[in-house]
């Protein structure tokens, strides 16, 4: 459904954030992008959503297509209309607005009646949000804010939902609740999910395919079980050492392993 092919993204015309990134997401599939800080994961999502330009970012190569149609150069609202929506990192709610107003803004691309209908759907998925509908969004707890942020994105009835680090700064119980909701969404409503996460274990547990990104490149990809078997992934992303117990950091030759991926 979504195909990202050899995309290269630069900021300010000089800083290369992403190079030769290729990935694809199929209908109803949960795909995860893993990688450390600054690897370029969020930049890829922003590139797909068409919101690089406020940060002086530019896609200078490659293609991004949704069902064969190019998304590059289209306006953010057209991209939302075509069924691709993103939940930004750190929730980014409209703090001074009420929860309901926040949600209604997620449905701005739809008709008023369509948005009202979508509102009921969101309340079904996150009953807790319904209780808080007239609260000022800025005063919600982190977990509730994340639910509103996801709900707001769902208001546009997306076919592809992109989540940028939904687990950031949340309690494990809330994370489990949110991940369960996302998982249900893809199973029951056939919504595709592109999930960016730092918590690799969690992401691999619900994804059906994963990409690992380093320094703006896809260095490894495969189904979760294949990645989880990989020694490097185990060590760098899941925190296990080969023998299963702690190692002396002096023995770890990080640079050699990373180099192998990059060459």
């Amino acid at each position, binding site marked *: 459904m979504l195909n990202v092919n050899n995309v290269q993204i630069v900021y300010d015309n000089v800083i290369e954030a992403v190079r030769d990134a290729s990935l694809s997401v199929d209908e109803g599939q949960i795909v995860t992008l893993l990688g450390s800080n600054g690897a370029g994961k969020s930049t890829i999502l922003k590139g797909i959503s*068409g*919101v690089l330009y406020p940060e002086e970012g530019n896609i200078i190569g490659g293609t991004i297509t949704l069902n064969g149609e190019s998304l590059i150069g289209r306006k953010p609202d057209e991209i939302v209309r075509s069924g691709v929506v993103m939940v930004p990192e750190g929730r*980014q709610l409209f703090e001074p*607005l009420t929860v309901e107003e926040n949600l209604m803004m997620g449905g701005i*691309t739809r008709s008023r009646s369509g948005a009202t209908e979508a509102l009921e759907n969101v309340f079904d998925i996150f009953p807790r949000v319904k209780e808080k509908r007239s609260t000022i969004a800025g005063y919600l707890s982190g977990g509730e804010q994340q639910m509103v942020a996801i709900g707001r994105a769902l208001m546009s009835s997306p076919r592809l939902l992109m989540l940028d680090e939904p687990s950031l700064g949340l309690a494990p119980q809330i994370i489990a609740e949110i991940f369960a909701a996302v998982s249900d969404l893809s199973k029951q409503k056939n919504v595709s999910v592109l999930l960016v996460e730092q918590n690799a274990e969690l992401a691999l547990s619900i994804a059906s395919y994963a990409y690992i990104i380093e320094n703006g490149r896809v260095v490894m990809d495969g189904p979760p079980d294949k990645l989880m078997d990989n020694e490097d992934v185990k060590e760098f992303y899941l925190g296990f050492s080969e023998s299963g117990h702690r190692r002396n950091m002096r023995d770890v030759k990080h640079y050699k392993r990373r180099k192998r991926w990059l060459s």
Partner: protein
Amino acid sequence: MDYFILLTVSGIAIGVIYGLIGMGYALIFKATSVVNFAHGEIMMLISYMAFSIASSWTLPFWGLLLVCVFISAIVGLVIERVFIRPMLGQDVFSTVMVTIGLAVMIRAVVVLIWGADPLLLPTDIGDSGVEFGMVFLYTSQLYAIGLLAFCVLGMWVFLRFSRMGVAMRATAARETTALLMGINVTHVYAIAWAIAAVIAGISGVLLGTIYGLGPDLWTQGLRAFPAVILGGLDSVFGAAISGILIGVLENLSEGYIGQGLKEISGFLVILVVLMIRPYGLFGTPEIERV
């Protein structure tokens, strides 16, 4: 006491116009984070246009106002499209500089077309008025009070209940997220400019009717500026209320302390306000969970 009431009432009469002008500043700042230094000039431009219309056709006051509302919406849209939109994505400061340039341009254009002599805006309400006890108010001043109330109510309904109004508040809160949700931000900006210009137009017609026209009419925009700071730059309603406060304060300070204080009393107040409440009386401090 009589003197006090007299000063207060006439202060309110001028204050409502400051309030109207201030609402325009606040709306543009709220939606686009730009202080529009050409706001007073846009107001002057429209009041001169109103003069041309009123001298070509004999229109009743409300008819004239309606035509001017229409024209000012177009003026607002054109200014946004031609001068402001190309600045999108640039530093806010650059856009503010553009508005200053625009202000100077409009001042020159107005003198070029209409000349520098003071003019009277001919309307059918003229010098009529109503006497309340010992206070006399012109009909136009009463209209000004009514129109401010109307604009405040209209803006409240717009920002609270219409989708465009909520989208405007959302864009003001977080622009990038607004883009991500599919809000057409350029559209929001254009509408904000159009509405601000309409409010400027209304205040321009009122000023022209009450005080007449002159090439220095734009200074009223500057005089209204303390109201916006006092209310909080991003509070449309705060600007309306503070406009009245500043108007009354100006009058009282002149009446009781002395001539010349009228011009500066508003600015003295904002000095104090900025020290105590930097976000103004009604502005939003950052919402933060503790």
